[in-house]
């Protein structure tokens, strides 16, 4: 049999995963709750949770709760456990579909002056340019993977589906070590 166990490096322990280098500090973080919300009733639900706007990849945000724009009628909500207690799985009201993704998304923070340069290595879009674009999706190609990105005051937060998170971490580890 063809054993590929040694070829693929093990996934990191997300509780302790950290990388340093290239002017960056990289760590996995755990928002208390992550939900996918879709439908015409999403804006009013977000307002009731204290989220006044949805954000794309060029609008900065540091604190919970926040809602990343995935498509014209769908967001990824990050919120506290208390706020999440008010959410319900399924199609619970006209224009509102809700799916929990708390275990399904790994969040990785890139913090430090090297963040912009790393983003330029990873993605095609010049996300460093300041002007926000209405309705732009936060979902971009980052290192060849589909990632929802959020601009922060100290860098970026990446939201990647859990099965792809080890691949993304491997890419980050490789590129943090490259100095050119």
């Amino acid at each position: 049999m063809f054993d590929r166990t040694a070829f693929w490096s093990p996934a990191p322990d997300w509780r302790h995963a950290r990388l340093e280098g290239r002017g960056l500090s990289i760590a996995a973080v755990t928002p208390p709750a992550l939900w996918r919300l879709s439908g015409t009733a999403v804006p009013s639900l977000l307002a009731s949770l204290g989220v006044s706007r949805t954000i794309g990849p060029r609008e900065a945000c540091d604190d919970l709760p926040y809602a990343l724009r995935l498509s014209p009628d769908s967001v990824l909500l990050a919120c506290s456990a208390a706020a999440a207690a008010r959410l319900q799985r399924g199609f619970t009201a006209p224009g509102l579909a809700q799916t929990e993704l708390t275990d399904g998304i790994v969040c990785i923070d890139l913090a430090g002056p090297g963040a912009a340069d790393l983003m330029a290595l990873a993605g095609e879009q010049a996300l460093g340019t300041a002007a926000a674009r209405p309705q732009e999706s936060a979902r971009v190609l980052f290192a060849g993977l589909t990632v929802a990105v959020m601009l922060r005051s100290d860098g970026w937060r990446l939201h990647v589906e859990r099965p792809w998170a080890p691949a993304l971490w491997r890419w980050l580890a490789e590129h943090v070590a490259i100095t050119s």
Partner: protein
Amino acid sequence: MSTSRRLPAGGEIDRSRPLNFSFDGRALSGYAGDTVASALLASGVQVLARSFKYHRPRGLLGVDHEEPNAILDLRLGARHDPNARATLEPLAEGLQLSSVHALGTAGRDLLAVLDRGARFIPAAFYYKTFMWPHWHVYEGMIRRLAGLGRVDARSRAQAAPHRHLAVDLCVVGAGAAGLAAARGAVAAGRSVLLVEQRTRVGGALLWRDATVEGEPGSRWAGRVAAGLEAAGARVLAGTAAVGLYDHNAVVLHERGPDGGRIWQVRAREIVLTTGAIERPLLFGDNDRPGVMLADAALEYLRRYAVVAGERIVFATGNDTTYVAAQAFAAAGARCTIVDSRTGSPAQDAARAAGIEVVAGARVERALGRGRVEGARLASGATLSADLLAVSGGWTPLIHLYCQARGRPRWDEERGTLLPGEPVAGLRVAGAAGGARSLAEALAAGAHAGTGGGRVEIPDCDDRPFDWGGPPDTRMAFGERRAWVDLQNDVTAKDVALAVRENFRAVEHLKRYTTLGMASDQGRTSNVNGLALLAERTGRTLAQAGVTTFRPPFLPVSLAAVAGTQRGELQAPLRRLPAEEVHRAEGAELREYGDTLRPAAYGTSHDALLRECRAARERCVILDASSLGKIEVQGPDAAALLDFVFYTRLSNLAPGRLRYALALAESGAIFDDGVVLRVAAEHFVVSCSSSHVRAMTAHLEEWREDRFDLSRVFVHDATPQWATMAISGPQSRRVLEALALGVDLDDAAFPHMSAHDGVFAGRRARIARVSFTGERSYEVSVPAGLAAELWRRARAAGAEPLGVEALGALRCEKGFILVGVETDGETMPHDIGMGRARETRTDAYLGDRSLFTPAACRSGRRQLVGVAAASAAPLPVGAHALSRAGGRRRSVGWVTSSHPSAALGRPVALAMIEDGASRHGEELEFEHFGAMHRGTLVAPCFLDPSGARLNV
């Protein structure tokens, strides 16, 4: 240090930094700032390589990327490049250079004898000779005799990661026009990237005399570039634009150690100021070492202080060569100009400067054996020379324009191809656009950069540019062969041969002779080849046509293309949330589609049989987390699923599951899976592991196409859940031990139903669904609890099951795997699921395709089981044979084949023509010449009644 060709002063080289290198074992030296080519030329090395087919000695023709001959094997430390281009490679300390594919050295190649038999191996000889008994007998030898460098499999290149950049304007080419364009764009407030293939900006300003804005052109170029960078523009020297793609995507290759670096650039607009290159002349033995392009010789003189010859004959038909002649005369060389024209002001000025001019004359052939020793003119006169500097006119570099689907046009007055109709988002300026003078180039560049805004045009001492007119073919068919494409060893006589054999279209000429197909993409040969084709076919050059230029413009190493996408990063995989426990259990992990999964727990073949026995006799656990879990929600969820799936789902009760097929519009099976109805307006679609993204996109596409977007939504929840399939006669006992808070009595929990439970304080979903044919439960928990669920189930007695054993178990049951049993043509009725086709009357995806004549004909391949006649499993892919009418024909093939621990004999599935009506028939199966026998049977080998589901 003294070299035979180096001037004592001048040039851009740093004489305080000598560098030592070797070529074919000979120790040589040069200076920092040299290229390998300039250092070799300065050292008096004239024979650098052997030609592709005839192994003729070859020297430098050019100075930059147009150079067709000087391709060398390069080693420096761990770096190895089997096809390094001497004109582009910077000289470095310790470089070890070797000639490529010579038997011996470039100076002494034992294979040079091939040239004596040249008449037997003209262009396309391999289509007519070396045929008996078949071509492959000779192919290996012929390939070894031809070709370029050999890869050293031990070498490892470590290229840099790709970089991405988005700009308003990308200017390709930092000569006069390009610098003017970039400066104008920056002044207009645009973000600018300026790319220059040479190591310094300036283009021809670096070696041709010019004054721009009151200073020497080369100094002006440096000042402008510094100003651009100070203003925030990015200037990349030593970087070539190698490809231009849709939507103004430009791929750059920045040269560097190993493979260099790829830049992926998006530009709102692109300006091409890529200049023009000189064409060689066509005359006998024009490939001799010592025949060089005149402008290249001038660049070696001015930039590297290398005098390529002491007795130089300049052969030309245009004024640009006179600049080179005067420069060499000033450097002390004895110069003679052979001009095909009979009178021009340039000739008078040259004579006044003491340079001999032979007007109205042409070179018939180069004299000399291993190197140029002189030239014979058409008149019969001979001239002594150690360098023949030639100019057959100029060709703009419009490769990138053509890559952008621009169609070039023939310009008779300039005698060259120019850009034709404009391409949206792209402008061509300077010499690349056909500029006739420096002033015109600067103006065109400035206009191109501002795109219609206010323009500041740099002033200059205007230098007219003589394009030289169409190629001169009068000396191409003399007694000695005249080379057209030096890199692929194509002569003028080869072009004539192709025309005689009726390959008259330019695309046929290209492929029949390989003219223009080498790594230089015909830079110095295409237009000359077109001229010969036109002459031989009685057409004008405009009528002859032009072939297509494709990326890359320059060869790019695969290491650069890969960048850091090597190893694990080349094709990333999805990982299971419990991977750590699988590794701890000694699993062999393997790639299955886009997911890394345990193939088996143990390394021996016995592991598979052991796991299968455990599944049939006790209880096993399989990590099925990669299976799709796509939520479809909303009032129209049922309607969407009824449309997308062949199997009706709207009548599924909440809490129940149904196996379903999804079809493509062609009626072929797209995927299969199990659909759970959670609530009236909430479904979960489980699909094949490697198809999750495709199925999600499939559902989303049809949602957007046919449905009110406010009434149905598709959410991929696959990453949220870890799913463990617990299967076997003792599976219920393991479920009881897990204490999930679910009534496991069969009456309350029948097969193909689901309940919510609790695991570790969090919600879990348990479904009774089986892919093994045994009683089975799929337990889904939040992904963070995957390892805990696995450990507890193992502690309760479940044994690990890998994907390989699962494959054997489902094969025993005749369960298909989409993409294994099915291909792009397999329809539901081919696998025994034709009922919906007969009973559904509502519209669904693929419905009409199921009733086409092709779908209804007899002879379609159908799913069957195959009982092998021997104890060994049939090979997967073995073809079932029919010998009807004395003709051997494949009637289908084996799709899956496994040993069966439960049955003690192998089992196989196959798709065989009319297989469903041929049970009991014994067939021959052939696999790579080996014959096997098997009997067609029903696909289900074990428990066809399904009683084991409730054992």
